[in-house]
């Protein structure tokens, strides 16, 4: 359903392509010009250049907010940089970053939720204005789906994004989410069922 290249562009790529190898406290990864880079900073920078776009897109889908998505991804790569020498297997670096991005998204959503609760008590939101973009049917459909997806519980939402955006298997999603593959399948099943219900109600 999706080519390997497309999946890689979305941040679902495997690290084998980057082939950083552990060498004591440093790592070697291809630099932007194909030259080896031998520092943690060089390796992380090379990974960032290859994967930042996909990660930001992933976070943007989860959050619906570009700036926060960029912040979350920046934090994730910064965390990788700080922990580079402690990584047992630098070949799993991108899986680590992906998990960090998801964790970061959860944190942002929690903060947004708390803040919203506070703000709701302080001020009523002004009446909505319909933008020209929102009037487009295709965009409206897409936003309906995303809106419904973002109403799902966090686990179901993440499972759906990892499955249908990154094309990860249940096992890979499980590793990223820190749960079992059975739980992933269950979350996908329930998420799709809820999503279908919500879209039906909206239509």
């Amino acid at each position, binding site marked *: 359903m999706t080519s390997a290249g497309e999946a890689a562009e979305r941040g679902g790529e495997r690290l084998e392509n980057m082939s950083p190898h552990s060498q004591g406290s440093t790592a070697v990864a291809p630099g932007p010009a194909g030259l080896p880079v031998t520092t943690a900073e060089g390796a992380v920078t090379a990974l*960032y250049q290859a994967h930042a776009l996909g990660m930001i897109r992933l976070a943007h889908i989860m959050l619906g907010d*570009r*700036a*926060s998505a960029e912040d979350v991804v920046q934090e994730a790569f910064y965390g990788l940089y700080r922990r580079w020498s402690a990584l047992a297997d630098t070949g799993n670096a991108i899986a680590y970053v992906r998990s960090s991005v998801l964790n970061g998204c959860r944190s942002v959503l929690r*903060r947004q939720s708390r*803040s919203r609760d506070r703000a709701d008590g302080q001020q009523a*939101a002004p009446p909505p204005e319909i933008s020209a973009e929102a009037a487009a049917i295709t965009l409206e459909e897409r936003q309906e789906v995303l809106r419904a997806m973002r109403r799902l519980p966090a686990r179901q939402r993440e499972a759906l994004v990892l499955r249908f955006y990154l094309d990860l298997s249940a096992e890979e999603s499980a590793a990223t989410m820190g749960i079992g593959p059975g739980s992933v399948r269950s979350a996908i099943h329930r998420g799709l069922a809820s999503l279908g219900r919500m879209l039906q109600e909206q239509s």
Partner: protein
Amino acid sequence: MNQLEEKLATALRQAGEQISPDSVPPLRLRTRRRRVILPRLPRRWMSWLTPLAAAAAVAGVVAASLVISATFHGHTRNAGPASAPRWNGSPLGPPSALHGAPPYFVELPAQALIYARTATVRSTVTGRVLVTVRPPRPYQVFTWVSGAADDRTFVLAAQRWWNTASGQAGTLAQNRDNNARTVFFKLTFDPATRTAHLTRLAVPGKIRATDLAGVGISPDGTRLALSFRNSIRIITLATGLTRTWTWPGHGWVGNFKPDGQIFSWSADGKTLAFQQWGGYLDSTVHVRLLDTTAPGNSLTAAKVILTFFNKDDVLTIAPFNTLLTADGSRIVTATGFSPRQDPRLGYQNITEFSVRTGKPVLSQDKFGALAGDQIVLWASPDGRALVVSDPRGAKTQDGPRANIFGVLAGNKFTPIPHGARTQNQVAW
């Protein structure tokens, strides 16, 4: 894949494609980014740092910085990887040093996840809030602040703001936030009565919130500089006369994110200092001086004073403010240094560069590279007294300490009471 699954996959793919490959900001590792994650109006981050004018000057710049720093701190760097030095900033200074900065400042105290609903006028000496103002209706939040030289006149940018909810409602709200008109107010503070008055400024044209990337009021309060990322506009407030300079190349003008004080002026109001960044995957930063009285409308005419490269083993700029001192002699900014062999030996400090030579002339307030962020918030006309934000506050959950404001003079740091803040929207 059934119809629902295809619909979901398509929606996710299209949502992801909203982020274009050429809009990915560069990675920033050398100085720690602020942990506070605010859903900004889409102000882009940029990467960081930088220095060096020429490759040949690199060694000299670094060596000079090291010598200066070692002199101030009374010790030399220990190069052993097992014994990374601990730098904790300049030692504490006397409370009287607080009088070396202007007595009042205006802060936009951002609350979680929203822009500032208020602006507060505070005392530099006591830290107390003297006056709190809110944007006149229908405007709801302040987004930018800049101060004139008299320490009584400030300019605030304001806009309407919609609470960002989740899903579709949040997207619409964010679109409205981004497209909302930005308006400007002059805040005049009267210390005798402890009152502040807001006066709407006549800035021509509709300025969308998302397009505005910084403001800087001239020292005499008569002209307002606005950054639009690829151009700078200066408006004469009395007449509305507008002059625009554009940046024709890649990258952008303005600093990190953008945030804080994008501009600084010379005392005579002729010269405007700003940062110009190289762009995606080229995080070289130039600090340029624009002669606002000279003819022309291209920012390429602005003279390059400093060039900061993003790489190891050179002194690099932190991604925040670079302030031109009012006498036009120095550029003051937070800098960082990361040795290639062992990043743990890296450090950051506040460095003043000569405008004439581009070389560092003063280095203070040295911290380890991962200690947190340093930001220069104000500089005295000759650069001898600064207001900075540095990471010596209370410990935070994720390691680095919180930032606090203080006056830095003679390599001594005097905290401003109640000055614990991590955000950067503040002006003296």
